[in-house]
């Protein structure tokens, strides 16, 4: 157990700059979005903005369009903007593929030549994923809270705390899901670049699948395969409750990824 804590501390130390920078950037992004939303709100621009959107886009986005064209909606965009989701999935892939990197650099030889059971390496990575995910999401929520309290125009309708927590929770579970997949790939691969590329391409493919399925019916039949299908931020913005099913599916995939990682890593050659 002591060795596992040492390993976790070592990994946290190695990724601290990356995680801090990403947390800060995403936190600042939340603040910037609030500034933008405040600016539109002050100029009563949400109505004008709405009228600029073509009808087919309104039809495509459905009723959530109304929710999005509001101060509250713009603030929430920070939790599902493609750049934010891409960065977070990229971060979890980087964290999840650490074992492959340690094998590639042969640092794992030094670690496992000590009396340390192999499962602690995976447990370390799971803990690292959970801690870093929680930290980045808390930073984002802190950015939202700070921006709303100090920069929001008076009279603007804030997103509820529950909505922000739901978005962050669902996004967090999605990140952990991709972390589990990345960890499973890294437990088999000899090179981090291979594991990272495979999972990155898979993430891109499933994101596109989910995106295409929203507009193209034939793709809908297999869209359930995409983890992104289980993150529906626009529904949450529209006031729906976070579906427990979505969380269970994502958490289930993550748990399967972790279980596969333990299995593969305990049997592989280093």
């Amino acid at each position, binding site marked *: 157990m002591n060795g596992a804590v040492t390993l976790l501390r070592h990994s946290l130390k190695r990724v601290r700059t990356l995680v801090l920078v990403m947390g800060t950037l995403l936190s600042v992004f939340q603040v910037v979005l609030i500034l933008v939303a405040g600016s539109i709100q002050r100029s009563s621009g949400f109505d004008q903005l709405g009228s600029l959107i073509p009808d087919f886009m309104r039809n495509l986005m459905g009723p959530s369009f109304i929710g999005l064209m509001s101060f509250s909606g713009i603030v929430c965009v920070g939790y599902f903007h493609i750049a934010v989701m891409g960065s977070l999935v990229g971060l979890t892939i980087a964290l999840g593929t650490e074992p492959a990197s340690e094998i590639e650099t042969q640092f794992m030889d030094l670690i496992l030549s000590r009396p340390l059971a192999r499962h602690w390496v995976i447990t370390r990575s799971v803990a690292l994923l959970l801690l870093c995910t929680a930290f980045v999401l808390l930073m984002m929520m802190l950015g939202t809270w700070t921006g709303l309290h100090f920069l929001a125009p008076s009279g603007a309708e804030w997103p509820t705390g529950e909505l922000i927590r739901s978005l962050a929770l669902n996004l967090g579970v999605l990140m952990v899901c991709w972390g589990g997949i990345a960890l499973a790939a890294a437990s088999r691969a000899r090179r981090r670049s291979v594991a990272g590329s495979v999972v990155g391409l898979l993430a891109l493919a499933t994101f596109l699948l989910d995106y295409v399925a929203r507009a193209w019916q034939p793709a809908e039949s297999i869209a359930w395969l995409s983890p992104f299908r289980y993150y529906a931020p626009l529904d949450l913005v529209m006031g729906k409750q976070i579906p427990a099913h979505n969380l269970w599916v994502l958490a289930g995939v993550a748990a399967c990824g972790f279980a596969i990682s333990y299995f593969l890593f305990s049997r592989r*050659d280093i």
Partner: protein
Amino acid sequence: MFGFLGLNGAGKTTTIRILLDLLRPSAGRASIMGLDCQSQGLEVRSSVGYLPGEMGLYRDMTGRELLDFLGRLGTRPVVESYREQLVKRLELSAAELKRKLREYSTGMKRKLGLIQAFQSDPPLLILDEPTEGLDPLMQESFYELLSEAKARGRTVFMSSHVLSEVGRVCDRIGLLRKGELVLLSTVEDVRALAPRRLRVWFDRDVNRPGDFPAKYEIVEIQPRLWSLRVHGPLGWLTEHLSGLPVLDIEIDEPRLEDVLTRYYREESQ
């Protein structure tokens, strides 16, 4: 002290990695001190200090951070004074230990590797090509560390290409050929298999004797110099020389290389 020998690709490093449970054997089992290396791997590895052939390091760590990190991963405590002694003996300064590993030369990384292997003073040291990259002075320091470890009752298992080094520091050797152990013996016994080189100089020209006994191999016979290889005691020669004008005799100790290169040649053929 056990020297583990073999040509490149013979399986030395693979064997070491199986002993440390880094590789899983496709068949058979390995044990250290009566403990199975796989099912009782944790107990085995708690008694082992390991120096890999190639040190995988994070370039942004300092030498001190690496030693602390690896020390904390083990179950045996690292005595700071002993570690400092190792650092001093291998001539790494405190300032160098504060430097990032990206600034380390090959030799410095090797020294750091030796310190991390020795620092908890484990009962068994497994060293893969330990002197690779060390300068001659550091090699001497390393040999001293080995003999001190031996005096404290530690066991050393080292793989090496350098036969003279193995002949100098090891008590027993094992020779691996294409994954099979083809020789397991004490260094003394292996040396006994080798002929001694003998050269005899004469004051004046002497006649060549008619026949040398079978255990004598003739390298060169000149009127005033005989160069021979002798298996076993000199016997016949001492009696024969008593009647001749001998100026000088030079006898080289049998060398490990003379026996082992024969095994190597058989492998390459």
